[in-house]
């Protein structure tokens, strides 16, 4: 292409090219470190993958010992659900003041509120579980505390975003009509935020069901502990059955929760 065809001169994109080169270099270094420093050796067990697969997902259906244990596993799963439900509900309530604290239009110190919520979210939930198990002892009680505190981080942030997006004209109209502060909140703010608050809480419940299946490994109750023990004993039939119970229950809850959330918002 000659200059005559392009009367407009080419934009100077040296800076862009430098940026791409820098990004490329950073990525190269990161991948170099990742690939050289990680020990990615394959340590297959004495059993072939096919055998393990069969023992995980086929044999449990024909093993009478495992079938006899299904009610026990369902009992563990109920406990898991109870942990998630109690934790999420407490978090859904405790997150409301945090949401108002972190919203730009209701709080003067919203940076502080956002900082607290970000801090909570940066801790992986397993860390909360460890702290609570160590302080209040093993069992579902510690799990509820861990889920409850950890969920405040995400719910508070989402609540704050909802509060920031409400229609302030309604509040103004109520104030002009002579409503006091409590009435403004009750008739102006609450009806606007309740559908989204509950939708986010239900969504968080889905996440917490998954979390509370995990928390058992540090002793915070639920199906996690028997699952880990069975996997350490290489009892793959039991592991497979528990996996099936978890997948079925989680799927049912996801479907229900999606239906409810569709109707709310």
């Amino acid at each position, binding site marked *: 292409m000659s200059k005559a065809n392009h009367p407009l001169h080419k934009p100077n994109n040296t800076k862009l090219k430098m940026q791409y080169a820098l990004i490329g270099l950073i990525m190269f270094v990161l991948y170099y470190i990742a690939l050289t420093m990680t020990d990615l050796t394959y340590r297959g067990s004495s059993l072939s993958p096919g055998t393990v697969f069969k023992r995980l997902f086929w044999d449990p259906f024909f093993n009478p010992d495992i079938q006899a244990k299904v009610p026990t596993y369902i009992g563990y799963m109920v406990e898991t659900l*109870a942990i998630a439900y109690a934790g999420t509900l407490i978090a859904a309530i405790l997150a409301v003041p945090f949401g108002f604290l972190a919203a730009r239009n209701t709080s003067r110190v919203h940076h502080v509120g956002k900082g607290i919520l970000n801090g909570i979210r940066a801790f992986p939930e397993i*860390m909360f579980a460890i702290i609570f198990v160590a302080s209040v002892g093993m069992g579902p009680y510690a799990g509820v505390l861990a889920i409850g505190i950890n969920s405040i981080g995400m719910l508070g942030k989402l609540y704050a975003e909802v509060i920031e997006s409400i229609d302030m004209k309604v509040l103004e109209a109520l104030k002009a009509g002579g409503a006091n502060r409590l009435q403004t909140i009750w008739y102006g703010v609450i009806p606007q935020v309740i559908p989204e608050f509950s939708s986010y809480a239900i969504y968080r419940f889905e996440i917490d069901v998954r979390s509370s299946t995990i928390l058992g490994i540090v002793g915070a109750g639920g199906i996690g502990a028997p*699952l880990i023990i069975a996997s350490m004993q290489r009892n793959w039939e039991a592991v497979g059955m528990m996996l099936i119970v978890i997948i079925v229950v989680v799927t049912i809850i996801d479907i229900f929760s999606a239906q409810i959330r569709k109707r709310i918002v």
Partner: protein
Amino acid sequence: MAKVPESKKTIATIPIVPIRAKIVMSNILFVVLAFYFLSAYVTQAYPNRFIQGLPIALEFVYKDLFPPNWGYTNKVLSSLVETWNIALLATTLAAIFALPLSFLASSNINKNAVLYQFIRFFLNIIRTIPELILAVVLIAFIGLGALAGVGALFIFSLGILAKLISETIEAIDPNPLEAIRATGGNVIQVIWYGVMPQLLPHYTSYSLYVLEINVRASVVLGFVGAGGIGLILKHQLALFNFANVSTIVLMTFFAVTIIDFISNRVRERLV
């Protein structure tokens, strides 16, 4: 004098909140609370015990976790690097494999309804399995070590990433795609010239988001022997060496915060 109470009466007969809505709301509230008390009974975590538990936890943090053992920093750092490497490799693999899957899982590219539904179903199943359980299963197949961790996080993030990307593909501007199809472009050309330019910023942003999730998730994986920081955390917990535990917790917190911060900055500039 008779007029005033009458007007008050009319106001009183028209409630601000409709009666039907009130009944529905109180029923919902009743069900929610009933489930709560059931759960509280199962878990022994009644509201008053929840409040009581918090000071105990704070006291534990103050007495046992403080002060952290800073001499342990080097060991933690090398484990954190391993955790980060696992997350990075898993995210990269997932980002590569999620792209073709998401084209198959978006209705405006994949016109084959049966294949579309099948891929969607497959992705939904993947997403129901918690990452730790994937790790347990993969350890059964490929043994203890970082490879199982990478595999577990790969499958876990494939589900999330493919869902996010396919939803974005379904929401893109259809006009360029139609124009390319009208001029005789095949599927590959539609994707390359029509979808990719619109998708690329979102794709990069989602990949970074999944990287953040994976960093958090890979902390847990070590507990079942899939490499990373979880492994040393488990050992120190078993030894009740809380000074070391608190070093691990604090350093993980800082690492996660820094990674989130950088990733958020990049994502803000992208989309």
